């Protein structure tokens, strides 16, 4: 199999299939889910049946439907957060690299300050004080994540800025916005794309962790992390309920990583090829 002229390895094919499946489920959740995610439809912890393939949960909701809606929440949220963190982190990182001097120092040290605090504890404090409304959750995690994007974007951009076409743009008298968006950004896309996939996974796991601890997505909305939390005790009674969302998390994470590995391998060998 080939995509854009590049050979796609078996693992990459699996990864792409997993990602596409998850995205389709997330997009069409209301059409695919047999029941509503928040309404009880039977007895609590009812066993799997023809109507309810994965059984019912602690308040009698359909687990399969919650899993499908959960995909929407978990994936959608991670995507929004990752995109936002890249917007903030990449622009700031590029700007720091292009500006250099004290600007770069000030921005880098500020980011070091943020990085020196454990992310989970920092998120805990903010979310406890401000509450776990979705916008707060999104902005908090996006800002925390953007520090890591900043570091990568800055180091990628510093290598590009040292090239002579950037010097030529400076000599022409171009401003920093042109240099960031027109000279640096197009050349930084490949490494940043790969990083986007990885950061998506981390964000996704981070939200799951927060939800598991009760600070992420709030009930009655379904999300895979909080589902693991809600169902975890049932593993003691022989129910597989917590394993479904846990498996969903694992499969998507591994799938995305397969795709990222493939993209990185193209990037490392495809310099100057194709286009």
């Amino acid at each position: 199999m080939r995509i854009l002229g590049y050979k796609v390895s078996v693992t990459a094919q699996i990864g792409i299939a997993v990602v596409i499946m998850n995205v389709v489920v997330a997009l069409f959740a209301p059409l695919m889910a047999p029941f509503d995610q928040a309404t009880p439809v039977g007895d609590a912890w009812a066993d799997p049946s023809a109507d309810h393939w994965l059984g019912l949960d602690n308040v009698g909701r359909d687990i399969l439907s919650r899993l499908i809606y959960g995909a929407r929440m978990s994936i959608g949220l991670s995507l929004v957060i990752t995109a936002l963190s890249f917007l903030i982190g990449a622009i700031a990182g590029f700007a720091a690299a292009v500006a250099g001097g004290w600007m770069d120092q000030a921005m880098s040290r500020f980011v070091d300050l943020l990085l020196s605090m454990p992310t989970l504890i920092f998120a805990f404090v903010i979310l406890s004080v401000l509450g776990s409304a979705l916008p707060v959750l999104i902005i908090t995690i996006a800002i925390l994540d953007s520090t890591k994007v900043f570091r990568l974007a800055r180091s990628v951009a510093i290598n590009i800025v040292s090239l002579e076409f950037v010097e030529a743009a400076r000599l022409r008298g171009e401003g920093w916005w042109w240099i960031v968006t027109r000279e640096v950004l197009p050349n930084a896309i490949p490494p940043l794309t790969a990083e986007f996939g990885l950061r998506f996974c981390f964000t996704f796991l981070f939200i799951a962790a927060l939800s598991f601890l009760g600070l992420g997505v709030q009930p009655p909305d379904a999300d895979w992390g909080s589902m693991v939390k809600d169902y975890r005790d049932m593993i003691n009674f022989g129910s597989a309920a917590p394993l479904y969302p846990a498996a969903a998390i694992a499969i998507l994470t591994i799938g995305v990583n397969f795709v990222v590995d493939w993209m990185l391998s193209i990037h490392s060998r495809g310099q100057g090829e194709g286009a």
Partner: protein
Amino acid sequence: MSVRPEGASRSRDNSVILNVQGMRVVVRTDTGEGPVLVDDVSLQLRRGEVIGLIGESGAGKSTIGLASMGYTRRDCHIVGGSIVFGDTDLRSISADQRRALRGPKIAYIAQSAAASFNPAHTLMEQVCEASERHGVLTSAEARAAAVQLFRELDLPSPETIGSRYPHQVSGGQLQRVMAAMAMVAKPDILIFDEPTTALDVTTQVECLASFRKLIREHGTAALYITHDLAVVAQIADRIMVLKRGKMVEFGDSRQILQQPQEEYTRRLVSERVAGHSFAPGIAAGEAPILAIHHVSASYPGKPRVIDDVSLEVRKHDTVAVVGESGSGKSTLARVVTGLLPREAGDVRFDGVSLPPRLKDRVKDQLRRVQMIYQMPDVALNPQHTLLETIGRPVSFYFNRSHDEVRARVIELLRQMDLPETFITRKTSELSGGQKQRVSIARALAAEPELIICDEVTSALDQLVGEEILRLLKRLQDELGVAYLFITHDLGTVKRIANKVVVMLKGKVVASGDTASVFAPHFHPYTELLLSSVPEMRPDWLDEVLARRATGGATTAALLRAP
């Protein structure tokens, strides 16, 4: 014509040590079969013989060099022919057996010694490592052999230089240490891959002399790969001319240089022989466009890089700034453009003093001075199309509409002899020479009065470089633009510059019209530079060495002089 001195210890056994027949190397990747790098090349290397492989980039000379060791770069495969070393076919033995031959039997000397040495280990450790690892020599034997080689290669203090680290010796010395590393195990074949290309001309002469002495005294066979016909003429017995992986001509060095049979070889030879005509001087009297008065500059916290430099450039002028690496010639360009603010002196453009810092200059001042760089690969944004690259200065400085920009870009492409259809191509899809033409077009798009050319031909192949020089000359005749031409290549200078400024360690040591600077009674450093440019005669190196032995100048001696 003198007979070349034969080394006394040169091996009398001149049996064939390497026999390559019908070698074929192709690129093969995941995406299928790629181009053929080497196509049906055959050669027989005898003991004690040196064969020069010459050609432009993409000629396959390095690939042949590596394949002669049974080695290929990633994704390259030897698909045809035989490579027989002694009486072993390198293609029929295992990879481990081949690896055991590389180093002790066939050794390789790469272009960039700086990139080949590990900065964390001393030179001696690295020189001896391979032969000890292969179990050819004991540690003590290897060290003794290394010191002996350091002496033969004319390295300073051969007893102790091994305890230094790679950054503590100069580039030319490091290149010779690398030759010592290759020779320690007394290999049967040495493969030199452009070993002097990255060096200054004056250093190149010293290295060439050392290499030749080494090869002759040990009677080692060698393949000498280079793009410079004049260099290979000094060292090779026979020369093979290559083009796009195919052999063009193969013969005795003197025959290749004096009676080339093929058109391609003739062109290579004639480009170097020709061009000793001085560019016509332009009548003085006109006010200079660029006037640099007693300028000094340094990088923060470092000693002065340029010290009290003055020069003037008039309309139609081509002023060459020549010097070796570290002479401050590129720094001078940075000071003129404002990338490095000057510390003292004045830079005047058209009579007006330019602000020292780039960001204090107004758009029109920036427009009138443009720059062309050495490496077209990194001087053009690989993600931009030609329309964006060349069109940007037009829209940026002149605020033209989209259609006007497009028309202007097409006009410039035509001026550069590039097809109009290239306008939508990305710069990364072009060849080196085409990229350099785009760089020139981008500079001209700003309609400048002065273009600073920083080593614009040194990254290009010889014939391509010649075309670029001709193009620059033609554009000057048509547009009257002045050039400040920074270069280390005196051959180029003689051909295109009407004024020359010679720099040594940040100071101007000689300046004036090309004819007067390059005529006798020149400054000793100018003489040293001039005499170091290899000429296309096999006896040139002997003559230079003979002259120097009788009291000629060296850079080191000149630097010590007050």
